């Protein structure tokens, strides 16, 4: 589904990603861990299509096709979804109106008519129940004045509505309380199928107990320095990053 080849990217003169290779197949869950500032969010932004970052080498293929030249919205239409580490506030646009616009724009790009209102309402009801989101919440301005946890839950609500093929969750667990973590993870797991894939970026093993990864990668200083199964996360939790860093510098 996703194939990243020797990806080098940066901003202005600063290199951030230095040769990343990653292959994610349909049906898989990959976790990316790594110290602060190692480039995890940059990697997700580059996959999602943030133009601020310049790709200096390598390629990103999505379903076999290079997406580097595509705008972020085109990538979204193809099924790439990024849950932001820091979701943006948009005063004056309600959650409902925003998600309706997003869905209908995506349908339009595929040559489909707007989703009928009744179907839209049903879907909103269903997904907000799944994520235990209160009705009143949906009429508030998007992310404006939302608590950290509310923002994250709202990101996953949008994901559930859009049903992407590839979901990248950048620290979705940070800010969530224990109950919310369970609810949100459940929401993500509901989306999982043999047709789609998830990349979870996290600092904590806890999330991975709910969303169990097939692979765990460690990103240090713009490179994937170690990959393994889910037990790698446990090992990292126990020992920290120094040993992986040490291992790779040898």
């Amino acid at each position: 589904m996703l194939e990243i080849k020797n990806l080098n990217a940066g901003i202005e003169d600063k290199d951030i990603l230095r040769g990343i290779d990653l292959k994610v197949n349909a049906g898989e869950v990959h976790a990316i861990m790594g110290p602060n500032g190692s480039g995890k969010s940059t990697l997700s932004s580059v996959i999602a299509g943030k133009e601020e970052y310049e790709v200096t080498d390598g390629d990103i293929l999505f379903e076999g096709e290079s997406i580097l030249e595509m705008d972020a919205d085109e990538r979204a239409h193809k099924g790439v979804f990024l849950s932001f580490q820091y979701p943006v506030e948009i005063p004056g646009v309600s959650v409902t109106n925003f998600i309706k616009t997003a869905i209908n724009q995506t349908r339009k790009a595929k040559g489909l008519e707007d989703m009928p209102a009744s179907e839209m309402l049903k879907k909103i009801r269903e997904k907000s129940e799944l994520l235990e989101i209160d009705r009143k919440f949906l009429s508030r301005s998007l992310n404006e004045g939302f608590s950290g946890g509310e923002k994250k839950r709202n990101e996953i609500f949008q994901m559930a509505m859009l049903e992407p093929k590839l979901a990248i969750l950048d620290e979705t667990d940070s800010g969530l309380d224990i109950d919310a973590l369970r609810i949100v993870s459940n929401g993500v797991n509901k989306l999982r199928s043999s047709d789609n894939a998830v990349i979870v970026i996290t600092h904590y093993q806890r999330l991975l107990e709910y969303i169990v990864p097939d692979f765990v990668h460690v990103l240090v200083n713009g490179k994937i320095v170690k990959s393994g199964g889910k037990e790698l996360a446990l090992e990292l939790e126990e020992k920290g990053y120094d040993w992986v860093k040490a291992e790779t510098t040898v």
Partner: protein
Amino acid sequence: MNIESRNMSLKDKLLSSYLTFQENQDFDNSIHDIKDAAIKVFEEKGFPTRKDENWKYTSLNSLVKEDYSLVGRNDDAVEFRDVKKFFLNDIDTYKIVFIDGKYSSYLSETTHDGVDVCLLSAALTKPKYKSVIDKYFDKILKKDSLTSLNTAFAREGAYIYVPKGKAVSKPIQIVHFATGVESNLMLQPRNLVVVEENAEVQIIERHQSLNSNPVFTNSVTEIYAGNHARVDYYKIQNDKEQASLIDNTHIDQQTSSEVAVHTFSFGGKLTRNNLNFYQNGEHNNSILKGVTIIEDKQHVDHNTLVHHKQPNCESHQDYKGIFDDRSTGVFNGKVIVDSIAQKINAYQSNNNILVSDKASINSKPQLEIFADDVRCSHGCTIGQLDEDALFYMKTRGIGEKEGRALLMYAFANNVLESVKIPQLKSRITKLIANKLGVNLGFEV
């Protein structure tokens, strides 16, 4: 005073036609006197020029150099079905409608049932209105040159009188149509709104030209809000590209009254709003809100004054503007707090988005505060759209164009929260969405 020669012709024409105008009116002596005094003020001051501090960024040159017919022709040739779209139709309202300055009974729905919703021409000439006219007509306003010019020629417009304790049962629409059938037309409508103690009214005012002849409207509205009165006033300025409007509104607020004026400026050649609030009682609340969305070479100038003359009052100003192409905007917000006016909260904000780099806005707060216990905040921003928000929207499948439109829509739409007539609110929302090219595939 140095009057630019180009101003001469229109000014002279007005001065000389004043005599004929006066001769043909059946006003009381007291009204004649007011008018004579007013024309003198205009004669002395003339049209404002950019040398006047208050008119630095708005030039009337292109307007006053035109030749105008000062009397319109009213042959009632306007059919309701042709102008229906300019009214708010989905709720029941009173209507006071004028065509080229003359009352159209056919399009209007007035009342004298407990409240007076009728014509100023009647109020100025019939004895039964004399006491109200004597008390309020020409009493609230500031005697600047344009207001005085209007006073001199004032004859027709809306007269609304809401006695003590009454609430007008439905909103009132005041609509001024201009057909300009003959040629360029100058109109000077005059509205008087008196809302006594504990009374309430909602008013929607609109100026609309029906063809492309230039129209120059110099309108004056006096509003009196008695103790505990509530006045909710909406101005819809979405006129044709050849139509210019100078709106002079003067508001006298008594104790514990609340007056809100919302101004929606979406079209017209030149629009100038002189909106003046005088707080003459304690515990007043004055609300001034505006949304401006213009393009081409359109110009909208908001010149506001809130004069806090008594303690324990509030004022809230929130103006938003979106300027495309070569359009220009001005916001000049003056707040005066007299020395006895302690415990005042005065808020003012003016936020703008320049869509095109050829568009411009001049924004200037003017605070004159002579009391010491005052909370006063003002902020002005001129910005582009939030790029992070645009990227966020794109990751959800909302493209650049749609995303920009949605952000601008959200920016402007925020001001509508305080609109109290739901049908009007949705109407304006749709207007904004249309202007910005947002596809409102959703209910709002």
